[in-house]
């Protein structure tokens, strides 16, 4: 089954003591996409998520899934039609990994063998070795447990996946891996995913649409990530996005249109004549590449011409090379990565490589800046100065 459309219509949650967790929230969650609910603690994001599978009952408005009001469905049947992933995974510690994943299929009356087969298939899908099937949760790392949590939620192939701060409890490196895994799985399966997080970076990384909620359970802005970064609705959203939102927004601009200069590249076994013919305007260095075309480092252009041979030759020695630093994949990486490479480069120029890691050219910070301006004006998302507009 593929994703479903979720309509949240003027939904409120008011507790008997008068506290309002969610206040007249309306959202259209598009099918087959990841919609992130993000905001500070107390903004009602988890409450909103839990109203979708009726772990919390709404007190106003309605929620429709593919046009059907969730209140009209038996609650357990509704929940079985949605995968549910929580922080710390919440695995059943007395059951093996395979049995954990097979919980919902077994509840739906699948045979043991069929459920087990499905568990194996899902372990592979979420990047777990099937040899772990008979292990118990305590024998797994936090990241592996969370993968099991995702596999368990996907077991009965529900059209909707609800994820409540699923990756908050693992360290940043593992979290990054899990996010990439989620995007890969989503590309294959096309579920309708509602994802709650307090981490705006995570929201931008995984979200197709981002709903920023503010304290008191009101919607502050609902937009795709690039639009959110370039045009925050108000000062509060801008504040929540953080100081470097402009830089982060560059993640959504590709480097295909960026012109790189192949003139400044010289092979390590180049002759003096070849060296003298190579140059890039405004750059006092040449990028020396190995025989395989991969960058070795920067060499001072004047000294290279004086010594009359390529710096990386046996005598010149790579010791005279400045490190080339991180390179970006031309056409694949974003302008953010390209700019980052340029900023970190000892020469101020970024090195562009192709898919195989072979150097294809160099580009300066100024050229990247020009590309950023061009990209913004082309997309019509010229960074609005919110401060001045106010």
């Amino acid at each position, binding site marked *: 089954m593929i994703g479903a459309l979720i309509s949240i219509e003027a939904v409120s949650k008011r507790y008997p003591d008068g506290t309002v967790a969610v206040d007249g929230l309306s959202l259209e969650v598009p099918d087959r996409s990841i919609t992130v609910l993000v905001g500070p603690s107390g903004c009602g994001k988890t409450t909103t998520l839990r109203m979708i599978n009726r772990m919390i009952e709404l007190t106003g408005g309605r929620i429709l899934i593919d046009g059907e009001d969730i209140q009209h469905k038996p609650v357990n049947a509704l929940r079985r039609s949605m995968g549910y992933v929580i922080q710390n995974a919440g*695995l*059943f510690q007395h059951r093996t990994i395979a049995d954990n994943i097979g919980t919902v299929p077994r*509840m739906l009356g699948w045979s043991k063998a069929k459920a087990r087969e499905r568990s194996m298939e899902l372990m592979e899908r979420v990047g777990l070795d099937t040899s772990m099937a008979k292990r118990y949760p305590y024998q797994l790392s936090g990241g592996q447990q969370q993968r099991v949590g995702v596999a368990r939620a996907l077991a009965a192939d529900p059209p909707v996946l609800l994820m409540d701060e699923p990756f908050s409890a693992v360290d940043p490196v593992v979290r990054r891996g899990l996010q990439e895994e989620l995007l890969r799985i989503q590309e294959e399966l096309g579920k309708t995913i509602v994802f709650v997080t307090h981490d705006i970076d995570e929201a931008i990384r995984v979200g197709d649409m981002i709903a920023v909620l503010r304290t008191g359970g009101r919607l502050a802005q609902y937009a795709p990530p690039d639009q959110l970064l370039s045009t925050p609705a108000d000062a509060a959203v801008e504040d929540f996005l953080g100081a470097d939102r402009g830089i982060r927004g560059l993640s959504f601009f590709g480097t295909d249109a960026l012109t790189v200069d192949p003139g400044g590249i010289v092979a390590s076994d180049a002759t003096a004549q070849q060296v003298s013919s190579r140059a890039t305007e405004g750059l006092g260095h040449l990028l020396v590449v190995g025989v395989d075309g991969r960058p070795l480092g920067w060499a001072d252009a004047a000294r290279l011409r004086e010594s009359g041979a390529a710096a990386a030759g046996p005598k010149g020695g790579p010791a005279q090379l400045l490190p080339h630093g991180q390179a970006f994949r031309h056409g694949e990486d974003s302008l953010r990565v390209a700019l980052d490479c340029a900023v970190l480069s000892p020469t101020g120029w970024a090195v562009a490589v192709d898919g195989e890691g072979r150097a294809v050219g160099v580009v300066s910070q100024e050229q990247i800046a020009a590309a950023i301006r061009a990209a913004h004006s082309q997309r019509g998302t010229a960074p609005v100065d919110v401060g001045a507009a106010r």
Partner: protein
Amino acid sequence: MTVIHFITAFFSDGAHWHGYDGIPTRLVEHVEFSLIALGIAAAVGLPIGLLTGHYGRGGNALALLATAARALPSFGLLVLLFVLMGLSKLPVLIPLVVLAIPPILVTTYEAVRTVDPPPVDAARGMGMHSMKILFQVELPVALPLILSGLRSAAIQVVSTATIAAYVSFGGVGRYIIDGLYQRNYEKVVGGATLVAALALATLGLFGLASRFAVSRGVRQR
């Protein structure tokens, strides 16, 4: 070394191994009393403990009741009931049951109530029925603690069942009570040894039970 002497003398006396006052008969009587008392206590304590723990309500009332029950002296209760009800098995069983319910009830309640919440939340979110959550998610995790409650109840019952002999019922307590009257210390020590052995056997039995009944994932070994 007189204790060891008494013990060897008691157990090597062939007369102690036969007839209605023989060790096998008394042991069977003792175990029977204990099992009935423990069975009734478990039948009362386990369901109430499981349900109150699952719904997280009634904890204070339970604790109060348990403390009150613990304050009742078993021996005093036995004599009182015997006077009130006359000679039957009930005056013997009731004090034992009253003794055994609190540890079972309170530990079961606590065991279920303190189960790690995320798996329970996950199970609810998957659309698992409430009772299925109790028996398939909470109980397996709470089992070690529940068994420890049953174990301490069982040991208390086995040790206290000796008082049955005071109102002329059998069991291993017979040797102790009779021995004291007859100033036969060999018999008293022998009876006490049997009670201790029974308590140890109970301990061993529960050790085995938890090994087989508790999931490896919960034992984490």
